[in-house]
């Protein structure tokens, strides 16, 4: 093929794919600024001719999205913080501390990866029901406080730390906790960032478990609030788009800011071994 034609073809296809990938996002953004009722027209409008912030105002004023936003931030933030501590400690132990049965225990953990999380949800709901944790933030956070994938990620990374460094500290009489906090943790910084973004995005976008666990509308996260609005069919298109923007924008912004770490983590997590 003519090289010029080939170049045009490759870049043209990429442009087309990018347009398909971005169109729903851009359209959502545009409609969220349209006055109520103006998006249902033929041909469908692409651009708000009279842009307005009314949809967002109503979202916070009447629809209570402000509290959903706060709930989402609280829940995703807490899960991220706690699971970071738990997964880092465990992943490091699997990588660098010696104890009987280490490899076997790790294999058991990896085996858990094949069990879909939804299998645990019904008994989990009952457990929380009898302990009074249904419809509480605690109940949403608890199962997310550790993850096999997180432990795996930390272990993969921590295995690369030099043993001599840890041995030297041990000979100097440092405690294991001191070694972890002062020597290991600073060296794990890249994986800490990666894990934090991965966990936050997953927790923010999570739907099924919060849907089961949170029953009172006041406790809803953004995806729950949006889904219930969508199923009630009472809100107009423009308002729904504003709600979608509010739900998607924080994670999209986080991804754009931390792209490198996020994509590295994705690769680290997908390579089993």
């Amino acid at each position, binding site marked *: 093929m003519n090289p010029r034609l*080939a170049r045009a073809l*490759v*870049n043209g296809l*990429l442009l087309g*794919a*990018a347009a*398909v*990938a971005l*169109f*729903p*996002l851009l*359209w959502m953004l545009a*409609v969220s600024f349209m006055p109520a009722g103006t998006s*249902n027209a033929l*041909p469908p409008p692409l651009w708000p001719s009279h842009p307005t912030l009314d949809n967002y105002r109503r979202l916070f004023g009447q629809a209570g999205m402000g509290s959903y936003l706060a709930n989402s931030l609280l829940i995703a933030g807490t899960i991220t913080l706690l699971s970071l*501590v*738990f997964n880092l400690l*465990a992943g*490091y*132990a699997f990588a660098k*501390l*010696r104890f*009987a049965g280490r490899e076997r225990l790790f294999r058991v953990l990896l085996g*858990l990866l*094949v*069990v*879909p999380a*939804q*299998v*645990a*949800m*019904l*008994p989990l*709901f*009952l457990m929380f029901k009898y302990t009074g944790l249904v419809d509480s933030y605690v109940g949403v956070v608890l*199962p997310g*406080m550790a*993850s*096999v994938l997180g432990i795996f990620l930390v272990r993969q990374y921590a295995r690369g730390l030099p043993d001599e460094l840890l041995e030297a500290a041990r000979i100097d009489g440092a*405690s*294991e*906790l001191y070694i972890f906090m002062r020597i290991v943790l600073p060296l794990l910084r890249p994986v800490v960032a990666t894990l934090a973004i991965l966990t936050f*995005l997953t927790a923010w976008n999570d*739907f099924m478990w919060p849907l*089961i666990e949170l029953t009172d509308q006041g406790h809803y996260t*953004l995806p729950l609030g*949006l*889904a219930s609005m*969508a199923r009630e069919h009472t809100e107009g298109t423009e308002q*729904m*788009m504003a709600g*979608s*923007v509010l*739900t*998607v924008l924080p994670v*999209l912004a986080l*991804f754009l800011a931390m792209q490198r770490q996020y994509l590295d983590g994705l690769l680290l997590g*997908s*390579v*089993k071994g």
Partner: protein
Amino acid sequence: MNASRAAWLFLAPALLVLGVFFLLPVLGALLLSFTDYDLYALANLHNLRFVALGNYWALLHRPLFWAALGHTFYFVVVGVPLSMAASLGAALLLHSRLARFKPFFRTALFAPVVTTAVAMAVVWRYLFNTKYGWANHLLGMLGIHPVNWLGDPHWAMPTIILFAVWKNFGYNMIIFLAGLQAVPLELYEAARIDGASTWRQFRHVTLPMLGPTLLMVAILTVSGYFQLFAEPYVMTEGGPLQSTTSVLYLMYEDGFKWWNLGTASAEAFVLFMVMFAVTAAMLRLARRREAA
């Protein structure tokens, strides 16, 4: 403090969480699936009865369960190859020496992955609106009659599949891209010297070298697609005519709408067993191929 004790202290919090909030409930689900746990038992545990395999037996005789299993398979069997083809295609384009603005394209194509499924499902519901949606408007410009995308039982699942492909292809694209970058350039060099066309280079160099990546991506995608739930929940509520009711959607309705937790647990376990069997079969097939 001795090293092994320190190790267990470091492990304890995470193992406790995984044990109490995952392993234990999974075992609990198995027990639950042998009981008739329902709304009455929820009120008073004395109403609980052990029914052995009764729930599983009942599922086998329930057309809606078979339908849900069928819809889930439909979603996996059509969705996974489409999704992987889109991922591989995008990765090949991005990997090409001819591609320009690579960082921009990579970000743009990946963006749908990080978006919230519920929010984008809401957006797609409007894009595929029969009257005012862009999908039908574009078809109209080509002279094609409007399609009742989410309202027609024949079209609802294909529409959800399109949405899932759009939402997910960027994830595997990144993994394929890393795989492509690991293929030694000398192999292409040699193939070119032998006069192999672009297609033959793809067929005889790229695909074999990507083998393990393809297998891993296939397994991850299959197990992800078996867990179809949020899309039908938001876009179609399992309809029309239950044509998008997946196994998990059915589990959710049986469990949390009708409070038949025993039945729902049996459904969860059947799904798990199906996923396990399919994954095992894929691994086995791949191994046999490698040996051949």
